[in-house]
């Protein structure tokens, strides 16, 4: 049990080191085996984790990593959760009748007078669009943490296109699109922030001559 915790702490410490300290992280990982053989793996691993966190705070590269994670965990994941929640559970602004997606699709519901024909048929497409925007947030966050900027650009463009389509269709169906518009604006702000992070990354790690820029 204690050995397992020590290994987990050590793995976390190794992950916390930035790219320029990768070799040191490997060195500590190798030395961890000697500490484990000596019966002191947890103390050693905790020390390495403290060292990694100190590095994170004192180096620009570390601050870059912290900013990326703060953006992903503090903005992108909550937005993804909100939009996927809206699409699956149905928050009031998307479906009439306040009964969520299921209620909106039911025949004979209180909303049926409003939802006849085209609108009822459009509900699944609207929820799929919203789901796409939510999943887009998750994929942008993932690609940003992997520093795959071309994928970030691709996913960002797709998410923006899905958000714009959603707003246009809601407007065409005379639905209140103000909440969707607000979320699209948050997506745009999010993408602008990601582009600042990408520029920061390019300054910190300029691409080598033989290495094509990603």
């Amino acid at each position, binding site marked *: 049990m204690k050995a397992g915790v020590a290994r987990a702490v050590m793995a976390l410490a190794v992950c916390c080191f930035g790219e320029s300290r990768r070799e040191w992280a490997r*060195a500590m990982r*190798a030395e961890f085996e000697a*500490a484990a053989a000596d019966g002191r793996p947890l103390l*050693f691993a905790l020390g390495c984790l403290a060292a990694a966190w100190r590095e994170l705070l004192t180096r620009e590269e570390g601050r870059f990593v912290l900013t990326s994670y703060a953006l992903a965990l503090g903005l992108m994941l909550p937005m993804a959760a909100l939009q996927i929640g809206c699409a699956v559970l149905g928050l009031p602004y998307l479906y009439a009748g306040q009964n969520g997606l299921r209620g909106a699709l039911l025949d004979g519901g209180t909303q049926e007078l409003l939802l006849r024909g085209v609108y009822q048929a459009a509900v699944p497409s609207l929820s799929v669009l919203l789901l796409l925007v939510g999943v887009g947030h998750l994929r942008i966050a993932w690609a940003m943490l992997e520093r795959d900027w071309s994928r970030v650009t691709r996913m960002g463009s797709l998410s923006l296109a899905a958000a714009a389509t959603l707003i246009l269709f809601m407007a065409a169906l005379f639905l209140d699109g103000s909440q969707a518009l607000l979320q699209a604006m948050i997506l745009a702000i999010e993408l602008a922030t990601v582009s600042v992070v990408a520029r920061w990354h390019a300054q910190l790690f300029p691409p080598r001559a033989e290495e094509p820029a990603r």
Partner: protein
Amino acid sequence: MVRKRQPSTQMRVLLEAMSAQRQQWRHGYDLMKETGLLSGTLYPLLMRMTDQGLVEAEWHEPAQPGRPARHAYRLTAAGFALALGLAQGRGDLPSDGAFA
């Protein structure tokens, strides 16, 4: 004017331990045991001393098969000179020294 900084107590302890066997490559865990420094103190020190050219590091093949290669350290000429200077009551870090 260039600001000179005195090495911390932990760095002095490490310099003393490494200068005692200057030519010998030392592993991190062995240095921890000898100096009493914890990994959270020793490794940041080693990293910065390597950045400043006071310590050199290289990978050594494992003594036992199946074990990972280990990183080993020893003082450079500049590191040894600093250790000698400290032992004689003088010795300042390079101007970019950032030790607590």
